[in-house]
């Protein structure tokens, strides 16, 4: 005896069910009978006690049989869907192995692709993105002309010729009270006020050289691709108005990129006859000072004390180092955000 729901009302009908010649035969004591092609039947999850069948052509049609009826009807029924159609077809273990392989390669590509793609992104595209994002920095920018000239002179010291041409580096000081400096898309380098007023020009030269290296090596592009690819959706929900001036410098570089930028910076300082010692001092200070002072800088530039050692080791005791800026320029730079 089986229970039949016709899908029209919830009223159950008692029927007899049997298998005959590729079809399911249903009959009732009052003489009603029906024959359903096995191809229309699908097996549904009925637990251990029941066998539950549905029809692909009639939603709501259900035949509920005692579990022991399954043996007789088995030839009519396909296999029950378990994990999903594709996985049922290949089997669980092969599906797991294939899945793991695909996952591993997707992760690998996701990690490596930005590195491969970055050098092939036309500089003009990146310039447009940069211009769209930063504009002219509005009221945040420190606009003292003498200070600006001094800042540019410092960039020219560590990276001669880097500011020329349409793809040249554009440097700006921002009146934001967080210790930070960053390279942005399109060759923009920004230095926040404390990075100017709480260091000496030599240490700032080291920081600038590091950011110039990020720009030249297309690390910014790489980070941008990584960001747009993965981080766009996630980061959006964490948005917080007001404290978000730093959002524009939140691009993250990989450890390898940071190490490379440091090596480049040391080489640039050497060529410019600027001692790497003040930069090392700065890193040392940042790694020991109060968190709220250095948190930002540490976050995007990990392992500060290790970096300090790297810059210290680069100090050549026999070299004749020169000041990064002349007295007048250094003073103008110091005042870049105080004069309007």
């Amino acid at each position, binding site marked *: 005896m089986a*229970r039949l*729901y*016709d*899908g*029209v*009302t*919830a*009223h*159950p009908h008692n029927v007899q069910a049997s298998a005959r010649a590729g079809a399911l035969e249903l009959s009732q004591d009052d003489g009603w009978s029906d024959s359903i092609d096995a191809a229309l039947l699908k097996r*549904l*999850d*009925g*637990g*251990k006690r029941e066998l*539950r069948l549905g029809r692909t052509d009639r*939603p*709501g*049609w*259900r035949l*509920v049989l005692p579990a022991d009826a399954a043996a007789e009807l088995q030839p009519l029924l396909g296999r029950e869907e*378990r*994990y*999903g159609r594709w*996985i049922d077809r290949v089997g*669980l273990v092969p*599906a*797991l192995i294939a*899945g*793991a392989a*695909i*996952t591993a390669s*997707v*992760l690998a590509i996701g990690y490596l692709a930005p590195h491969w793609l970055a050098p092939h992104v036309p500089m003009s595209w990146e310039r447009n993105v940069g211009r*769209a*994002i*930063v*504009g*002219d*920095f*509005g*009221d*945040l920018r420190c606009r003292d002309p003498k200070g600006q000239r001094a800042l540019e002179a410092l960039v020219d010291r560590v990276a001669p010729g880097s500011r020329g041409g349409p793809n040249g580096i554009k440097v700006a000081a921002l009146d934001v009270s967080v210790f930070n400096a960053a390279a942005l898309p399109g060759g923009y380098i920004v230095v926040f006020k404390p990075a100017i007023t709480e260091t000496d020009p030599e240490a700032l030269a080291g920081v600038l050289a590091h950011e110039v290296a990020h720009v030249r090596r297309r690390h910014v592009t790489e980070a941008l691709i990584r960001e747009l690819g993965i981080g*766009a*959706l996630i*980061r*959006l929900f964490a*948005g917080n*108005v*007001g404290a*978000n*001036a730093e*959002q*524009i410098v939140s691009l993250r570089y990989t450890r390898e990129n940071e190490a490379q930028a440091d090596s480049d910076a040391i080489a640039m300082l050497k060529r410019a006859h600027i001692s790497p010692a003040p930069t090392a001092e700065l890193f040392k200070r940042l790694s020991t000072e109060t968190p709220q002072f250095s948190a930002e800088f540490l976050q995007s530039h990990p392992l500060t004390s290790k970096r300090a050692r790297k810059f210290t080791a680069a100090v050549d005791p026999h070299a004749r180092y020169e000041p990064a800026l002349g007295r007048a320029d250094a003073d103008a730079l110091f005042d870049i955000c105080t004069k309007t």
Partner: protein
Amino acid sequence: MDAYRAAPAAHGERAVRFTGSWREYLPIAATNALLIVCTLGVYRFWASARQRRYLWSRTEFIDDSLEWTGTGKEMFLGFLIVIAVLAPFFLFIQLLFPALVARGKIDAAGGIMFLFYIALIYLGGFARFRALRYRLSRTWWHGIRGGSDDPGWNYGGEYLGRIALSAMSLFIVYPWAATRLWNSRWKAMSFGPLQFRANLTAEGLKLRWALVYFVPIAAMALGALVLFSILGLSDRQLGSGPMAGLGIIFVALILLFYVAIPLMTLNWYAKYYREAAAATSLGELEFGFDATTMQWLGLFLGNLALAVVTLGFGLTYWGYRNWAFMVRHLHVYGMIDVSDLTQSTTHAPREAEGFADAFDIGAI
């Protein structure tokens, strides 16, 4: 013969019963977890379809089990549609917002962000409605399903309006908003030819909501009193000895504040769900729900403990435990005439619960 008595049934049995067991569910939980990990999470749609198929089939109502007919594929497609709709919107804001901030236009950036959150709240309400409608349309009993013909756009607006109003009152009037939203949501739903009815009011809920505000404050005040009396004592008798203890008390005070708020919120929700179930009916069926605050707390702490003890694997049992909890505390009373319970004529939505999934919210 056609009229089914829901409860108390003849054998003193409950009308709604959960018959699953954790052992029987283990193979599903284990393979789901494996497949989710091995597919970067894409399998989670199929995993949740399998989980629901199991849970529904182990939930008996009177003389037959429920049946879940939703598929992983439709949930995956629903998710893709939502991503396709939302991604350009997110990307635009993602670029526009920093551009405005960089130009010093903080006000404009704030305005954009404000509009953005308004849209999110609207979509959140819409998503909740659609999730409930989708779940009812995929839930079958005796070959009959539920559903709704309301697309839920208006509900999204009502949700936004009521949430905005209660936000303006610092959420003091939230019980009024929550109860009216429950009514609007359920009144739009049906099972077979029967329309759900809901007339939940905030009447019995005001005190518990007030406690959400007062208990943390009272706890702080009491703690401060204890603190000051100890301070007073230490001046006169104990010297500098208990200063270390003072720090501990201070930390305990902060903890108390952060524990009191969720506890009181739970206390409110326990009553809310009891009243909500009692205020909802379908045809001649009445509902009841009897979980107390302590039982809810037991469920959540049990979930946490399970996840910790099993190093995370227990997470795969949360859905199981939550469902079993709901079913075990749910009561249905009254009569249902199965000959009158004809097939639902509502439009079966195709897009699954993509929005609710994207915003990570439940249906009820």
